C-alpha cells in the first residue's frame, strides 16, 4: 500500500518544491520506489528543480483527460532508478483538476509506488485542497517568520477539516513540521523565531530543520535536488528529515550558531 505525503504550507516561497524534490529523492536513495507529483497546474517548477524540464512531453492534466497514459507522462530520474516525476501542466489552470481524476491517477500510482509525494501549490484554494485531499501524511513547510507560521496554522485547519481522512472520520492525517531557512545566528541575536517557538505555536511534531544555506540555490541552479549534495548542511539536514519520516530517531543538527573567532567578531564578518 502506497503512502501519500503532501508537502504544503499555505504561504508561497517557503520551500515546498525544494522540499518535495529533496524528500522524494531521499526516499528513493533509501531504496523506496517514489513518485513526486507537481500539483501546481499553470506554474510548474518541480521539473526545473529536478533538472528534467527538457524531458517533459505529457503532463498530469493530459493523463487526467486520457490524452496520454501514466507511463508516457512519468519521467524517470537520471540519478536514481527508484525516482519518478509527474509534471504539472503549464498551459492549463487549476480547474483542470477534478477530484475523481486525481483519485484515479493516485490509485494507479499506488499499484507500483511505495511513496507518492504531492507538491502542493501555494494558497488554500482548489489546487492546494486537491493536493492534500487524499494525503496520509502532511509535511508542513514553514519559515521562522510570522506570516508563514500563521499560514501554516491555516493549512493545518484545512487538513483537519477538508481532507478525505477528516471527512470520513478516519485516522487523521499525520502532520509533520519542517522548518526551512533557519538561521541560528539570528535566533541567538533575538531576531528570528526559534525552533521551540514555532513548535510551541503550531503544536505538531518536528520532522526537520533546514538551515538557510547557499547550497539550496546552487542546487536549484543545477537542477539537482540539494539532498544529492551530501557535503552541504541543507543536504544533510534533509537526509536527517527523511530518516525521521521513516521512523528513525536522529538528533537535530545545525541548530547552533557557528562560534566566531575574536577577529571575525571584531570585524563583523558573516
Amino acid at each position, binding site marked *: 500500500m502506497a503512502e501519500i505525503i503532501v508537502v504544503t504550507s499555505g504561504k508561497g516561497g517557503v520551500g515546498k518544491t525544494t522540499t518535495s524534490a529533496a524528500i522524494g529523492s531521499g526516499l528513493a536513495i533509501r531504496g523506496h520506489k517514489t513518485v513526486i507529483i507537481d500539483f501546481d497546474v499553470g506554474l510548474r517548477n518541480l521539473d526545473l528543480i529536478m533538472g528534467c524540464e527538457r524531458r517533459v512531453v505529457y503532463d498530469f492534466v493530459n493523463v487526467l483527460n486520457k490524452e496520454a497514459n501514466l507511463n508516457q507522462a512519468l519521467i524517470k530520474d537520471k540519478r536514481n532508478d527508484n525516482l519518478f516525476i509527474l509534471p504539472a501542466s503549464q498551459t492549463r489552470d487549476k480547474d483542470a483538476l477534478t477530484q475523481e481524476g486525481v483519485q484515479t491517477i493516485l490509485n494507479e500510482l499506488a499499484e507500483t509506488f511505495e511513496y507518492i509525494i504531492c507538491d502542493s501549490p501555494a494558497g488554500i484554494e482548489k489546487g492546494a485542497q486537491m493536493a492534500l485531499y487524499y494525503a496520509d501524511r502532511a509535511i508542513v513547510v514553514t519559515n521562522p517568520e510570522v506570516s508563514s507560521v*500563521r499560514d501554516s496554522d491555516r493549512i493545518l*485547519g484545512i487538513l483537519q477539516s477538508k481532507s478525505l481522512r477528516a471527512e470520513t472520520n478516519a485516522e487523521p492525517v499525520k502532520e509533520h513540521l519542517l522548518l526551512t531557512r533557519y538561521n541560528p545566528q539570528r535566533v541567538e541575536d*533575538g531576531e528570528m523565531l526559534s525552533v521551540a517557538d514555532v513548535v510551541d505555536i503550531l503544536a505538531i511534531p518536528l520532522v526537520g530543520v533546514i538551515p538557510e544555506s547557499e547550497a539550496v540555490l546552487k542546487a536549484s541552479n543545477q537542477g539537482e535536488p540539494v539532498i544529492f549534495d551530501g557535503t552541504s548542511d541543507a543536504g544533510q539536514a534533509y537526509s536527517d528529515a527523511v530518516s525521521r519520516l521513516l521512523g528513525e530517531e536522529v538528533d537535530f543538527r545545525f541548530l547552533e550558531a557557528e562560534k566566531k573567532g575574536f577577529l571575525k567578531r571584531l570585524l*563583523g564578518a558573516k
Partner: protein
Amino acid sequence: MSIFDYFRSSKSNTASLAKERLQVIVAHERGQRKQPSYLPQMQQEIIEVIKKYVAIDSDQVTVSLDDSDDCSILELNVTLPEK
C-alpha cells in the same frame, strides 16, 4: 555583529514580540475555525431582535459557542443601557 554594535544600547528582541503576536492571532483564528458557519448570521439576527425592543449597539452583544466534550454552550451576553 561588529565592534560598533557593542556601543549601542540594549538590543531589542523582536523574535519574542513575533511569538507573542502569533500566539494571540493563532489562538483567535483557531477559535473561529471551530465555530459553525451559521454563527455570524445568527448573531446578527439575535441583535436585530433585541434592537426591536431595547436601544442597543451591536458591540453590546457578544455571542459565543463553547464546545466542551459532549456539551455545547451557546452564551449570549447583552449589556443593557442604563436607565
